[in-house]
């Protein structure tokens, strides 16, 4: 009896939190189907319209922002994986002088205040011609994603007994072959989970995309602000834009749902 009561109380607590977390998104969904004229009352009863979505897609501009976001975010994550996986491996496997120092240095970059970095970086980008380019944004975004990736994967690599590798090498595989064929599949859950978390950080970045790009390359976060700044505020279009912009991540999160939690858990409590 007492146990049941507790379970009910727990469910109520969870539902309360769920309301706090989910209602703004539900409201957003509702707004995206409202006419501008219905926008300024708080009723749930209105005639739904697809007008907002039509406006978003009519001129192709939003699609352009969306593609820009995909290019820079996925570019940054891909780059992070290419350089981050070997780095995490090196930090886990080799015992060399200054190892912990280097590992920490990577992490500390993630915590460099954006406002501090962005101004000098702006001047530098202008100098190097990286301002308002894909390469420029990818470079600065990987600074956001690489540290997390390295730190989670390092735990994974440490979990893999060195004997596994050595046995394979005795079978005649080269070091690189062992890395690709044996080690990589073992760390996949961690890679997927950490890549997704990094992707979220990068996908939503505002400061860098605002100040280091904006004409040739415009990300959705920056673009979405345009809908609420006009003589008539288009909350409905903004709501639609926000939902569409978060769709790729939501779909990714749903499709790797199982990996997500498991992927993060394996590396954490290592031997």
């Amino acid at each position: 009896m007492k146990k049941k009561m507790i379970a009910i109380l727990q469910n109520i607590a969870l539902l309360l939190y769920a309301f706090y977390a989910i209602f703004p998104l539900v409201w957003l969904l509702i707004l995206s189907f409202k006419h501008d004229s219905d926008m300024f009352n708080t009723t749930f009863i209105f005639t739904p319209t697809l007008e907002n979505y039509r406006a978003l897609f009519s001129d192709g501009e939003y699609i352009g922002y969306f593609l820009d976001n995909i290019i820079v975010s996925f570019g940054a994550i891909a780059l992070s994986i290419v350089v981050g996986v070997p780095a995490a491996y090196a930090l886990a496997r080799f015992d060399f002088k200054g190892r912990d120092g280097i590992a920490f240095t990577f992490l500390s970059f993630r915590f460099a205040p954006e406002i501090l970095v962005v101004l000098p970086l702006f001047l530098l980008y202008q100098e190097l011609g990286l301002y308002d380019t894909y390469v420029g944004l990818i470079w600065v975004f990987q600074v956001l994603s690489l540290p997390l990736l390295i730190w989670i994967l390092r735990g994974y690599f440490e979990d893999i007994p060195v004997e596994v590798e050595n046995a394979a090498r005795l079978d005649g595989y080269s070091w690189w072959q062992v890395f690709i064929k044996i080690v990589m599949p073992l760390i996949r859950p961690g890679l997927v989970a950490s890549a997704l978390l990094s992707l979220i950080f990068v996908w939503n970045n505002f400061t860098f995309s605002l100040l280091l790009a904006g004409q040739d390359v415009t990300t959705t976060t920056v673009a979405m602000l345009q809908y609420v700044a006009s003589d008539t505020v288009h909350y409905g279009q903004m709501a639609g834009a926000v939902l569409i912009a978060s769709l790729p991540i939501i779909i990714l999160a749903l499709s790797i749902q199982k990996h997500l939690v498991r992927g993060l858990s394996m590396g954490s409590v290592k031997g």
Partner: protein
Amino acid sequence: MATEAYEKLEEEQLTNKVPLKIKMRPFIILGPAFLLTVGILIPFAMAIYFSVTNYSFKYPDYVFVGLENWISMFTSADFWQSVGVTLTYAGVATLIETLLGIGIAILLNRENFLSRSLRIVLIFPLVIAPVIATIIWQLMTNNSVGIYSDWLRQLGITNFNWGADPSTALFTVLIIDAWVFTPFVTILVLAGLRSLPKAPFESAMIDGGSAWFTFKNLTLPMIMPMLIIAILFRLMLSLQMFDIIFALTRGGPGDTLMTLPLTAYTEAFTYKELGVSLPFMLILWVFVYFLSHFIVKYWTYTQNKASGK
């Protein structure tokens, strides 16, 4: 034969008596990652340099002014007020998100229909950009068109002004911060909980330990490494939180929410005094650097403890 080769391999990896080529291997592998991130050091260097000049966007030239900017920062009342607001914000935000995150993770870790179906859904706020999240909340709490204000009015609360009132502004930004980032803690703690071994918990059950006893003595130490990672990220990033406060109140009302990042941004962009602004960010960076170092050290310690070393 096989054992000999194996020992040779082990020696390669574990001792220093190896050819230079192999000794350099970790550095070669680390190289690309390091080169990429080291680029970010150049802006740091520029920032330090500009902080001792009177670099301003309002004048074409600038000159070296020594520690003038630093001294004027340390002697201004605004700075110390900023430090207070920044620490309060980061401390309270991290505390709320950690406690809430652990609680929700534990609730989600139960095996029932509700928990299973909410497990992924509750992560959704994390995918909304903080600046956009703020606009959504602003819209919902706006006095004339906001649905939350409307509900409060129907409950008879008419004088709650969210971000517009100095006494509730901090509360409002914290609500938004927690809305976006609690899922980040939840997901990491949940991952920690899912990886716990079953055996010790079963024996604790048999011994008749209370739920709190089990949590304190078994669960918490074992999820500690994951929890510290979550706290580390939340604390470091909320110390530099800019998007939410800027989008909601620009640091107002008055100076209520002028954190270090807000002060630095206002000095640099609104007042265009880059030289004056940079010390505010550099001091924050130094603080963040050392604080994260200690947290990481503690993390290594708990990790060893959790794995029984």
